[in-house]
């Protein structure tokens, strides 16, 4: 009934237009306001589709001479250029990386040996996460943390030949933090862990990972800090992947979040690949990178995430 009267009013006063500066939000009646808004949206959509059609016709008419399609702006496109982005030909950075704490791994002098543990008294989810992580990383061992202090664990690890220490921190029965410490005297990275999916929760997953060493893919670690973290992840896995196993671990950095995925791939023919996701899936965000082994009070920090100073721009990223 209401709609009926409205339409009649329109047909009677066809020439009278709405007063200027009229906006749909000024109508006090909710039903009428909703109706006008819906009408407005439909008209807008109609106009948009017409414009699109017109543009497409023009483009086809021009054929080869058509101007190239405009690229839409995304946050990755609009990222503020980071001056610490590494230039591959830079000698100084190459020297720095060639002689840093990971150089013994990249020069094939040492093989990784990883110790995975948790914070004290872990709950089921964290325990299962650690077990699954140890199947993904070759030559890794899970130990129960009996309330031991990390500063005392570290010298013992070094004496037993471990190269990495991973501590998964748990809060309210869910893993939420990770401390990744390179052992002889190397840097310690502290991450925030989120979005952990165990094997049971994965859809269309493959069988459990085998003992073969996976290949490692590091995506988008462009800045100097990104390089250090990327090298750290690469040093977790043995240098020579066993291609028979067809397994690959991916660390994908986007907008300062690092996504870890573990897949098994198979080439169906030269152009087609099929992948199955196995293994745990989680995202990491770097909180701090400390020089030296774990020492949160007296250690020197190479990079600390300071939210109010660094997160002020939506287009500035640090990794």
């Amino acid at each position, binding site marked *: 009934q209401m709609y009926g009267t409205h339409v009649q009013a329109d047909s009677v006063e066809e020439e009278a237009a709405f007063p200027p500066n009229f906006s749909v939000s000024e109508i006090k009646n909710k039903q009428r306001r909703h109706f006008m808004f819906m009408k407005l949206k439909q008209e807008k959509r109609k106009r948009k589709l017409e414009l699109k059609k017109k543009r497409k016709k023009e483009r086809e008419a021009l054929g080869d001479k058509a101007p190239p399609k405009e690229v839409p702006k995304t946050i990755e496109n609009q990222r503020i250029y980071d*001056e*610490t982005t590494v230039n591959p030909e*830079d*000698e*100084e*950075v190459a*020297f*720095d990386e060639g*002689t840093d704490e990971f150089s013994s791994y990249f020069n094939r002098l040492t093989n990784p040996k990883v110790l995975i543990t948790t914070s004290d008294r872990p709950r089921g989810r964290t325990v299962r996460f650690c077990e699954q992580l140890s199947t993904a990383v070759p030559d890794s061992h899970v130990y129960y943390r009996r309330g031991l202090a990390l500063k005392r664990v570290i010298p013992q690890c070094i004496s037993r030949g471990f190269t990495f220490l991973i501590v998964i921190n748990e809060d309210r029965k869910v893993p939420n933090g990770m401390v990744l410490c390179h052992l002889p005297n190397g840097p310690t990275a502290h991450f925030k862990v989120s979005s952990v999916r165990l094997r049971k929760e994965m859809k269309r997953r493959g069988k459990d990972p085998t003992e073969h060493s996976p290949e490692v893919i590091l995506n988008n670690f462009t800045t*100097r800090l990104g390089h250090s973290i990327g090298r750290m992840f690469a040093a977790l896995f043995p240098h020579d992947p066993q291609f028979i196993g067809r397994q690959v671990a991916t660390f994908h950095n986007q907008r300062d979040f690092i996504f870890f995925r573990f897949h098994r791939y198979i080439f169906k023919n030269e152009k087609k690949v099929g992948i199955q996701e196995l293994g745990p899936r989680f995202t990491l965000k770097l909180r701090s990178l400390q*020089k030296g082994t774990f020492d949160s*009070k*007296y*250690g*020197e*920090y*190479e*990079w*600390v995430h*300071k939210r109010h*100073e*660094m997160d002020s721009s939506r287009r500035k990223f*640090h990794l």
Partner: protein
Amino acid sequence: MASKSQSCSIWVGSETGILKGVSLSKQQAFNFCEMSCLSRDQEVCVLEWGDPLESEVLVGCANGTVKAFSTEKGIFTESKECGDATQGKFTGLAMMDGSLVTCAESGILKVWKEGCTDTIEINVGNGVCRMRQNPSRRSQVATGGKENPLKVERSISPVSNMVKNDWLDLRVPVWVRDIGFIPDSDKIVTCTGYHQMRVYDPSSPQRRPVLEAEFGEYPLTALSLPASQGTVVVGNTHGQLAVLDLRKGLVRGCLKGLAGGVRGLQCHPTLPLVASCGLDRFLRVHSLEDRSLLHKVYLKSRLNCVLLSSRNLELSGADLSGEVEEVKQEGEEDGETDEVWDAMETVTDKTNKRATEKAAEENAVKGPKKRRKVAKK
């Protein structure tokens, strides 16, 4: 090479052994080294001026060599073996009446005279973190370290060696990380690894510190005294830089921007500027008046120490290119804010006065309100 080194106003030493010179007027940084013979044991530990005219920079390396770099010629002129890696890294270098004083982490303080090979050696205790020379009284050096209390050596000669200890009540652990001499007085400022800042007065009969203040929760690694008296700038391992007041020990303000631990800090001798370098591979120059970042330079290796020359670092707007982002023209900014204040209320010229006036106004406003509340009750 020579022109490059002559234009550099800030010298920085890095962990890769490269001496870098930064020219703020040209907005460029130069590496002074041989790319082919780089090695980690050449890591620059200390930088010091070789002479009062600032024509020579002394570079102390981790393997025990001290190299002299001429700023006019742009090359390393000589290199001296002043110890080896077993004694630890250099913690201080000083030039005293033509002889070179070096101090290593193991506590061995050596005086090397020009020409002769024999050296005077003093042991100041193990675990030394820093040795500094008093700029006004060149024959005085102070040393301090982990469990190594502050000692002041009055004159380097084996006969009259007045060593002074500080005495702490209740055996509080001592970890002196950096030392500064307050000009025009006998006092010494130290910052510790237990996030404390202490001022000592050797001339007083008391051995306790005159002033003790705490800042933050992380070890303070570097300290510097600005040209204006009464304040000190400290930096800690978390990248926090703060200006502390020397009269009451309160925090005057923080300088923002650093993401990594501060390794080197130096204030300009005359201008209100402070240069800081650290593990995040950036050299930053802040202004001490409004605590804003003036320059930020990316120098690809981790930086260990910084040295400022006393000539004017040209900060005029015309020379700046797009490389440096946050730079403000000081004169113009002051003018603009002055106009705003003129329009609003009483006329003030200096930022300090404005801050105190604002505080006074706020207090005045709060005062009557408080009285009103009391009356109602």
